[in-house]
């Protein structure tokens, strides 16, 4: 049994129900995310737009060539089939605390990150020329993205996916090329972080550069960290480590070296 529910009656009595683990299937993968299978689908006709602030819930922005940024101040917003030039020191798509879905889009030119979101989804996007690809605040799904050529500011601290707060993030089947710090950075800088799954990604160094460590699980701020899982990833060693694990432990399953295919020992 995988999910244990505690049920309470209006009179105060409680009981428990155990459910089996749900059946989850993995769709067939033709290739790793790259420039040809992420971003705006070929043939999409785009309309030019300027920067925008979205305040209406569930707004759908699609088929736009946006000279950004895009500021999202409502929940349920969907951004798809867009090319977004962030044009700023900040986030190109700034959905601070909002559950935005960004899919099939190309986003670049921002100092902080291409996308900031919470309980959001970033799917099949081509993200580049930002200091970070995605900054997640908790509950986000980051899947099937091509994150590469990172760096916007001269002294960039670069991470492909940055998790410094929140829990429940899933980082799955992305191709991330990074340098400076990491491909996936998990550090309890702002809140405790629990139950993050990083699986089936290709996490490598930007050609000619290196990360410090391919992935981090760093609880040196001691705000709390548990349930961090790295499995079935392809990793390229950074300058010092494959993984920097500090003041916590991680579940480490079948992670292999990018060049040799050898199993990477538990950090």
């Amino acid at each position, binding site marked *: 049994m995988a*999910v244990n529910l505690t049920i309470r009656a209006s009179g105060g009595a409680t*009981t428990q129900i155990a459910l089996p683990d749900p059946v989850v299937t993995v769709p067939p993968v033709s290739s790793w995310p790259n420039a040809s299978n992420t971003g705006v689908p070929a043939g999409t006709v785009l309309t030019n737009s300027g920067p925008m602030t979205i305040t209406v819930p569930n707004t759908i922005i699609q088929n736009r060539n946006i000279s950004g940024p895009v500021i999202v101040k409502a929940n349920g917003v969907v951004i798809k089939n867009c090319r977004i030039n962030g044009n700023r020191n900040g986030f190109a798509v700034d959905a601070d605390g909002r559950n935005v879905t960004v899919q099939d889009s190309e986003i670049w030119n921002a100092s902080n990150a291409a996308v900031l979101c919470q309980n959001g989804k970033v799917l099949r996007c081509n993200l580049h020329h930002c200091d970070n690809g995605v900054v997640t605040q908790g509950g986000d799904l980051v*899947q099937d993205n091509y994150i590469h050529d990172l760096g916007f500011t001269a002294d960039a601290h670069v991470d492909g996916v940055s998790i410094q707060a929140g*829990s429940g993030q899933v980082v799955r089947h992305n191709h991330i090329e990074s340098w400076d710090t990491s491909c996936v950075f998990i550090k309890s800088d702002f809140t405790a972080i629990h139950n993050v*799954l990083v699986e089936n990604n290709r996490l490598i160094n930007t050609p000619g550069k290196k990360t410090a460590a391919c992935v981090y699980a760093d609880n040196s701020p001691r705000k709390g960290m548990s349930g961090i899982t790295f499995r079935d990833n392809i990793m390229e060693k950074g300058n010092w480590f494959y993984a920097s694990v500090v003041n916590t432990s991680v579940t480490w399953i079948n992670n292999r070296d990018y060049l040799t295919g050898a199993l990477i020992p538990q950090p």
Partner: protein
Amino acid sequence: MSDTFNVTAAYDKESYVQGETITVAITGDNTHVEESIGQAGPIDITVQAEGSGAQHSFQIASAPVAITTTTHEAVRIISAVDTGPTPRTWTINAEGNQITATA
């Protein structure tokens, strides 16, 4: 006092593709039974003779009586803990009758 939960929980689909939203909903209620001891009496009874019309009164002492109260109570989810090999974070909705997570 007893509580009998008649509650079922079920996934909304038989299987999910990675990235889909998984929803589990509960249905049912709790049958709450309270048993208490009440009292019948005392009872004052007066009888009368048919011929003379003379009357006599006496009292039956009180006796304990069992009282059973059955209530069907609404139920809600107060926690969802995932102990599977890939623990998910489950969110409980405002009504407390379903949870969701990402496959």
